[in-house]
């Protein structure tokens, strides 16, 4: 398979060298392909299999979900339901509880486990706008009462449905981020499974973004990317290797602040151990944010996101 890729790259290289396009760094591209070919020769390119393992672990049907962590980490938990306008969205869980000696608000995507009925009930963790509006309501409570906000991100994406669109899915995702941008309490996001695109980012505009070792975080699903760019959803492995949704890459790009280790065989192999590791990262992160004033927290959060992006000028 890599032989095929190598041939393609060499072919491309030859074409680029023949082509003299003005403007955008074609010579850089030539250099990049040459480097990639060198790497292939030395065989140290990050393995497609390794990245795909993260994708599989992140979507593992036995992977612990938001409520599994809440059960193990949050005391005095009380779930708060409903968006006060239309409905309660079961794909999002929100509520109050105690963590590390203080009251916190917890918000997360929730997938159903086991039979189809359970999974459909939670809509596979794909929220409607009402779910994000419920979350915003709880964020508002947290902000007024000084409770830190902890979010658990685990969704394939916002739900692609007719009613979801009619009720303003895009606007709800934007509004949820805006609500997080306004918080004057500490906000910590943990990507615990699939950090899928807009649905994920709605809960991830936090002071610190943590990510579990085998979670993924991406702008589009590997299948979605493959079907658009390769015109073939079957090329998902290849697509994942191209945009690298794994935690190591997200850390390299500065998109997340730290990687939370998982049990050796993945979070699904030992819920208690996974929760312990997640809890200690969360505690340390909240401690670090404790000293900051509300105004500084808000500034810090917006500055954190201001710096994202790579461009030339």
């Amino acid at each position, binding site marked *: 398979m890599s032989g095929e890729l190598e041939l393609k790259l060499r072919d*491309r290289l030859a074409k680029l060298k023949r082509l003299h*396009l*003005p*403007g*955008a*760094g*074609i010579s*850089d*591209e030539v250099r*990049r*392909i040459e480097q*990639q070919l060198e790497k292939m020769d030395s065989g140290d390119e990050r393995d497609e299999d390794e990245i795909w393992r993260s994708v599989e672990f992140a979507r593992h049907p036995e992977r612990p979900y938001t409520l599994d962590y809440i059960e193990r980490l949050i005391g005095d938990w009380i779930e708060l339901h409903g968006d006060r306008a239309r409905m309660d969205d079961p794909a999002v869980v929100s509520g109050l509880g105690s963590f590390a000696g203080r009251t916190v608000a917890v918000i997360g995507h929730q997938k159903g486990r086991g039979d189809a009925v359970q999974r459909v009930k939670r809509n596979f963790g794909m929220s409607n706008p009402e779910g994000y509006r419920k979350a915003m309501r709880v964020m508002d409570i947290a902000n007024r009462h000084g409770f830190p906000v902890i979010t658990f991100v685990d969704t394939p994406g*916002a739900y*692609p*449905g*007719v009613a*979801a*669109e*009619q*009720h*303003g*899915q*895009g*606007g709800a*995702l*934007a*509004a949820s*981020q*805006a609500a997080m*941008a*306004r918080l004057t309490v500490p906000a910590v996001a943990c990507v615990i499974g699939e950090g899928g*695109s*807009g649905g994920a*980012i709605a809960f991830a*505009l936090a002071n610190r973004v943590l990510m579990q070792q085998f979670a993924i*975080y*991406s*702008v*589009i699903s590997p299948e979605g*990317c493959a079907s*658009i*760019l*390769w015109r073939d959803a079957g090329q998902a492995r290849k697509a994942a290797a*191209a*945009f*690298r*949704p794994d935690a190591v*890459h*997200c850390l390299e*790009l500065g*998109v997340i602040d730290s990687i939370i280790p998982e049990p050796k065989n993945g979070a699904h192999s030992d819920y208690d151990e996974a929760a312990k590791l997640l809890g200690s990262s969360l505690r340390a992160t909240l401690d670090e944010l404790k000293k900051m004033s509300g105004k500084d927290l808000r500034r810090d959060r*917006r500055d954190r*996101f*201001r710096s*994202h*992006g*790579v*461009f*030339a*000028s």
Partner: protein
Amino acid sequence: MAGRIDVSIEHKNSPPEPGGSKKHPNTCPKCNSHYRDDELAANLRVCAQCDYHFPVGALERIEQLLDDGSFIEEAADLRSADPLGFFDLRSYKERIAEAELKTGLGDAMLMGQGKIEGLDFQLTVMDFSFMAGSMGSVVGEKFVRACERAIERKVPLISVNASGGARMQEGILSLMQVPKTVCAVENMRDAGIPFISVLTHPTTAGLLASFATLGDITIAEPGTLMCFTGPRVVQQTVREDLPDDFGLAESNFRFGHLDAIVRRRELKPTLAKLLRLFGHVG
């Protein structure tokens, strides 16, 4: 010159291509009326027969909306890098080079200062023909700088949007442009700067989940597709017929997501009115 619309987000009811061949860009896809370039330009690229709004590129949009010669471009030198060394069937670098050649633009957004009826404001305009108007690091950065300049200059921001969403060739960094631009809008809000968002066909996905829906005022041109998920994907998910106006501005207006639908020839006067009403800032 406006490019063809990416089929992946094209409205499901758009008429089929006759004989499978591409229509001439000056032929109305709704009623088949055909126009010379100058006729179409004179009518703001709107079909005189059926009022279909043809796509408008960023430069032509500026010409249509702004007082003559009032546009001063800023951050013009920003160019996409290729942080992932992204390579699908073709390389990202090659796709950018091609888009630059095709559109004569540096990326999918122009940013700068402008005036309408003498009223000063900051402006961003997107161009769908540059890689489907997708938002990568350059578009995100230009929009944020527009917000910062609006705050600095104490003038309103108008953004004219047209985008398929995030630019997946920049991977997770393109997703990060979403919260990045949201934060910039919040800063603007704190500073009391008015923000008018104009949605034009199509404005979808990552754009709707970020600044495009956060305007103090949000208006759209008729027929604008403005959905978070495109009709094709929704149809594959729900496996039933979609409403005829699924995701269109008209449907969004009925459900309360738009302040107004404004026809193109009313756009400039409407923006002038809003600029007058919001008055001087600061």
